[in-house]
Each structure stands twice: as C-alpha cells, then as structure tokens.
C-alpha cells in the first residue's frame, strides 16, 4: 500500500506525453487533469460517476476520471479527448449531430471510441450496455447512435 501525506509530485502519461503534477493524495484524476495539466476536455458534470462527462481512457478502457484518484493513474496510459486526433468518431459526431451543447461530448466520444476499438461489430445490445453509462441531455441519443453506426459501417468497408 502506498502511503502518502500532504503534497507529492507524480508523473502521469497523458496523451503520449509524460507530465508532472503536484497533487494531494485525495485529488481525483479529473481535477488533476483539468487543474494541474490544463486539459479541459474532460468535464465536471456530477463528480459522482453518474454522467460520464469526465470519461477518459485508461490503458484503452473508458473510466470516469471523477471516480478515481490521480495517484491510481500513475503508470497507466491516459488519453483525453485532446489526445484523439481526427478520428472517424469525432468526424461522425459532427456530421450526424452527435452533440448539441457539447458538454457531454468529450466523455461520450471517449466511451464510443473505446467501444469501437474493443467491440468493433457491437450490436445494439452491446452498444446499449456501453453507451448507457454516459448522459446526454440534448440529442435524445439519436445523433450519437447514427454517428456510431456510421463508424462501424466505415470500418467494415475498409
């Protein structure tokens, strides 16, 4: 068990860069990413694991960064929306109305991206399981559904 009291310096691997942050042991990964590393893509929506606006990838898997300590992310590969570069799912979200206000988008994109990577041919049941962990209040999920379907179709045709 790691025992740390007071401020401590950690290294985080975020978007393929090693970044240093001075943190307290109780600091969440979300707060450290936003406030120490200046990456504002992950959003504060509920800080209770309910909405998913803070979703980032941790070793390729989507996690709610408000629900884990920054310390626990040491040694893992973190990807935020800023680390996605011209991916098809981003393009599809723009093209198919996968968002309106944009506040849930960073988190939704990370979740959808991870799903398309892990289960490229996810059927509707699998998609429901994955994508129901994020909340969107604007779209009624129609645009998100269409965007994901578009990426699946494009990947198949490759």
């Amino acid at each position, binding site marked *: 068990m790691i025992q740390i009291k007071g401020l401590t310096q950690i290294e985080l691997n975020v978007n393929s860069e090693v970044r240093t942050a001075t943190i*307290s042991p109780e600091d969440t990964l979300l707060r450290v990413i*936003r406030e120490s590393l200046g*990456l*504002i*893509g*992950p*959003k*504060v*929506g*509920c*800080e*209770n*694991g*309910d*909405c998913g*606006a803070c979703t980032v990838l941790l070793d390729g898997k989507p996690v709610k960064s408000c629900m884990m300590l920054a310390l626990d992310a040491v040694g893992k590969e973190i990807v*935020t*929306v*800023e680390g*996605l570069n011209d991916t098809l799912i*981003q*393009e599809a*979200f*723009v*093209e198919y*109305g*996968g*968002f*309106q*206000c*944009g*506040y*849930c*988008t*960073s988190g939704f*994109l990370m979740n959808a991206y991870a799903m398309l990577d892990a289960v490229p041919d996810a059927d509707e049941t699998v*998609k*429901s*399981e994955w*994508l*129901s962990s*994020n*909340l*969107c*209040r*604007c*779209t*009624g*999920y*129609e*645009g*998100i*559904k269409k965007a994901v379907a578009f990426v699946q179709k494009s990947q198949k045709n490759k």
Partner: protein
Amino acid sequence: MWKTELGKSFVRKEGKEKVTGQVRYGGDIEIPGLLHAATKTSPNAFARILEIDTSEAEQMPGVKIVFTGQDYDQNVGLYLSDKAIIARNVVRHYGEIVAVVVADTYKQALNAVEKIKVSYDVMTPVMSPSDALKPDAPLLHENMEAYSHIAPIHPEPGSNVANRTKVRKGDVGKAFSKADHVVDVTVEIPPGDHVAMEPRVAIAEIKKSGYVHITSSTQAPFVVKNLMSHFFDVDPGKIIVDVPMVGGGFGGKAGLQLEGLAYLLSKKAGGRPVRVVNTREDDLLASPGHIGLESHVKIAADAKGKILGMDLVFNFNSGAYADYAVNVSRAAAISCTGPYSVENVKCDSLCVYTNMPFATAYRGFGHIEMSFGIERAMDTLADQIGLDPVELRKINAIKAFDTTPVQSVLNASTGDIETCFTRVSEMLGGNLGEVEHVDAQHIKAKGIAGLWKAPAMPTNTDAGAILTFNSDGSCNLNVGVVEIGQGTKTGLAQLVSERLKLPMEKVHVVMPVNTSTSPSDWATAASRGLMMAGVAALEACDDAISQIKTIAASVLKAPERDLVYEAGQIFVSDDPTLSVSFAEVVLGYVYPNGNAVYGQVIGKGRYIAKHLTDVDQETGKGHPDLEWTLGAEGVEVLLNVNTGRYKITKAVCCMDVGKVVNPELARGQVVGGMAMGIGYTIMEGFKFNTRGQVTNGVLRDYKIMRYDDAPEYSVEFLETPQQDGPYGARGLGEQSVIGMPGAISNALSRAAKVSLNTIPMTPELIWKQMQKGGTK
C-alpha cells in the same frame, strides 16, 4: 447563378471545437487570482435560522470570506422580489444556500464549509399547492405586500398565491348546461430539474473603476445586466456580461442565477474575481428547476364531439420562490385550451408557493404542464363519446383566424395542425384507438397529443445584428443570441449566406456574447432567436449591400440600380465584364495611386416585436403572442401487463415550423425535445420524504433518459411560412417537449385500461393502478 442553400444541412459552425475539447465553458476559464466559492445548504425544507456560526470556517486555510444572508439585506427576483440572495432568517426549501465560503482554492472552500454550524427552528413544510391554498396554511412569504413586482404579475399578499391569471372568454356556464358530454380530469406533475449537463457557473470581478465583469453560463446576458443594474444599483453600462459557450440551458439558465451572488462575494472580497460553480447537487436543488402542477380540466362537448367550453384550474407549484414561475403560470393561462378552438373558456391559473425547490423557465414554458391535462381530457372525452382520438382532435383543431383563449385572432402564418394530426396518425400506422395483444403479457398501444406554443416574452422583445467584413470579402455576424447547443448561430449564418449570396465558409459568426459589444437581445429563450435575430441579420445584410453598392457604383462608374451581386462580386447587370469584388470594397476602396475612399462597411439590423399587449387582469383579453408553432406528437408503447414495465418503442412528431433553414439541426432540436418530454413523463421529478427533504437530489437517483431508453424517432415538418419571419422561418426549439406527457399517458392508459394521470408514470404506479382497476 446563386443557388439557394436554405434547407441544406450545414454542420455546426462550432462543431469541430466541440469534438476536440477546445470549447471553453464558464467552468473552464482561468483568471489570475481567481477565488473559489463553496456553499453550505439547508437540510430543512422550512425553518427559521437561529444562528450561523462561521468562526471556525473563517480560520480555515485559504479562506478569504464567509458570506451569509445577513451580508445583504435586499431582495431580488425576476418579476417579484421575493428572494434573498441566499437564505436570510428563513429557509424555504431543502437545499437552499445558507452560507458561502470563498477561498484561494475550491478544495479549501469545500473544507471550510464543513466547519460552518447552523442551528434551525424547524417548521412544518407546505408540500403541495392544494395544501398551500388552504385558508389556514402557513404563509411562506409573510411580507409579500412589501415585495416589488412588475405590472403583469398579480400577487395576493396574505396567501401563498404569487400570481393569478384569469381567462374569461364567452359563457362557460351556458356551454356546460347545454353539453351532451362533460369530462372532468385531474392531473399532477411534480417539480423537477432541467439537468443541463453543464452545471451553472458565474464569475464576478469588480474593477476599481466600478466596472463589473461577469462571466456566466447564462441564456440571458442582457437580462442579467439589466437586473443586476436594477437590484445592485450599478450603471448598466458598467456591467459587462460575457458568455462563453453554454452547456445546455432548457430555460434553466434564463434568469438571474449565480451572477448576483458572485457579484456580492466579489464585493466582500475587495473586488477580486470569484467563481461560483454549482455542484450537481446545488444545480438540482439550490438553483431553480421546473415547475410542478395540479391541473383540473373540465371539457363540455356536444354529441358529435365539438367542444363547447373548457373550465380550467391550474394550480402551479412554484416552490419556495417566484422566479420565472409567475410567468410560466401566466403563459399556461394564455394558451390554456391547447391547440383547440374553444368559444367559451374559463381558466384560473395560480402560481402557488410551497416548501419545495423553486421553479424557473423550463423548455415549453408552462405548455408541457398545461398540455398534459388537456390531452388526457381529450382522450377521456373521445372514449366517452366513442370517437377516434385523432378525429376528435381534428374536429376541434384551431386554425388561422380563429381566436385564442385570450381572444386574440390567429393570423395567416398559423400552422396547419389538422395535417399534423393526420401525419402523426399515419406515421404510427393509424388505428390509434386500438390496442394490439402481442403475447400473453404484452400489449402494444398508441397515443397522440396536439401541441401549440407561443413565446411568452415582453411586448418590446428585441434583437440586433452587426455585420463587419474581412479583407477577403468574408463577413462576421455578431448577434446577442447565446449558443446553448440549439445551433441558432449556424442557422443565422445560413440566412446571411443566402442574403449576401456568399458561400457559408465566408460567413463567420461571433460565438461568445458580450453585453458591451454585442447588440441588445432580450434573451435566448422562448424559441425566438432564429426568427428575431434572423430578421435583424437580414436587415444588416441589406444595409451592408446598400453600402457595398454605393462604393461599387463609384468604382464601376454605374448607377447603383444597375448593380447586381453574387459570390462576393458586384457586377454591372448589363455588362458583367465590369465588376469589383467584395474584398476590394468592404474595407474601403483603394485606388491604384493609394488614395482610399469610403472606409469599411458595417451592416446593422434591428428587430422589435410589434403590436403586443399585456392581458387584462379580469378577462385575460389581449394580444400577448407574436407567433404560434403548432404540431402533433404520438408514441407507441409496449406494456407488460403483469409488471407495469414498458418501453416506448416509437416517438413521432409532425410540426409546422415555417421554412426549415437547416433540416438536420431542426430535427436535432425536435428529437432532443421529444427525448426530454419522454424523460419528464416516464421517470423524472423530485421525490420527497415527509419532512420535505428531496430524496433523489443526485443524478444517481434523479433519473434522466439514457441511451438504452431512446425510442425510434420520426419527425416531419410542414412549412406554412411565417410571414414576418426570415424567409418564412419561426421558432421550433422547445415545442416538441410539449406533447409527450399527453401522448404517452394516453397510450399507456389505453394499454393498461386505467386512467394514468400522474407524472412520472413509473411501472410501479401503473401496476398499482391496474391492481385497483380503472375507470377507463
């Protein structure tokens, strides 16, 4: 030749930034020296505050100030000044803020808040409008007569009534006396929340010069500016409200929210910038949510189903404070019959205080609430007469040149709701009165509802547009409409593109709004942005074109009347070889020898609503509504009759929205509204224990729709032009929320063979009703 691109689905102007995490919302903005606030809230629904001990909190690391209700003795309020900036002496709802700590860091502020001790004398809360209306009910606001209010609001001191709007049209007594059929339906809706994904945020800083800088997640920067000037006695010109991207509004960010508190905190902290950002819990409970309602609907009809009269009582549940709620109840009265032509109408719409979290504007502004009771009563009437529910609605559908409940005549722009009913019925496969037994456990049923909405807004509601240009001939559109996700700025860019005959990529829009540099715009509310700012934007285009032609006429040595323009070039119409580009003239023309003339082109456009009046206090007579959007909605549900569980399998909408400028964005608004209306009907609303405490005050328990709840959506538009709208367009942002309670409750009632008149329509509620057996 320029080919029109109105009706083409351009992607959002801000789209790329939203999918790359580059958009900044209020919570993302960092300012050097920024201080952070955290709140202490009340665990009681109704109590006198005996003492707030802040001494320990003040000694905590990083703490700059601790603020309580005693720090500011004036009240604020949008229409009725009934609210202290945070609770002073009395708390009137669970979750009300009683103290605020400001510290160097947010964490320090949170830690210090824990040390504040508050002692209360707890009172018995008033937990429903009907209880609040009892003669011996405790008064929430004992000093109501001392509150200031605007003229259209009629508070009743000595009671819990914050506003009463009366509609008297024709002779309702006579209508009921000669009726063949009378139905009497009561429905209930609990208060709940918008749940915009971005919690509300405000930053305030007071400069030594006296300038007050506010950054806010507001839908209504000009309302904030004007109200802050009014309540805090600051010159309006010294209040600068800056609005970055806003993460969803739905009406919840349309009033004065955290801005006043942030201002007072900054003032106490010597003018330093202070950010107040809601936790999700504060956003649900301390900031206002949506209104509740107890609605009593009586309809009289003849043997054929023609409605003779409606007798309506709406007891709106405002919660602890009035905020927008007093106008929500008023708006519901003005539209009280739903989209039906009724000769004899009596409606008393009350806005009633209770010890619940208070209400503000919510998508639909009183119409979703009003519609639930009306549409349940319509289906009840159809059942009683033995008429098809679609037929009954068509018989009574309101049309152009009919009069509204407040006796204002609908004009030729009025949409074709009859066709909307037909299309919705067809989209659902017809036979809406029938149910289908899918298997031993499952019943499939359909339901329909009509909807209408007019914007409830001041009679002088305005908008403006400023058009400036760049050296490549492209333009920049600056309007006061806030981008809250609705996509209006992209739609406005399309209008400008059409008028200037400039391709979309040459039309830039200024995304943030700043009250010192953007033209005045009442508020991004009431679904009026595209229409009003659109008219202003077109006028700005015409103004710019006129200036461009003046310069070009001089350069081309041809009269202005002979000039035509397209794709950034001005031509002499009878000799198109003679031309000059926008790029050459929009910043002033420069002759080959260096001499320059005219200077830059700046287009300006204005809009102000015309011919609007308030409604009469005794009869409601007046002309308060600028334009109406009409439509119909329906759903198909699959109910398990053993468990009460169900799935909404299809949701359909046909709405007459005038010209559709951007079909995909329009569809997105409508589908989003349908989803919100579905969530509102089937799973949302605050739950309370007997002490008035909210038991679902976090998103874990306050359920909103998730991905797997979404039905299959179908949307169609009719395009009866809005004659005074830009290219015939009118509002469509809110309306699709309105019909869902009616459509869903009608479908489920039909499937379960009981009357389901309470929201949220949980499986438990349906199951219990089915055990009791219904009246249907």
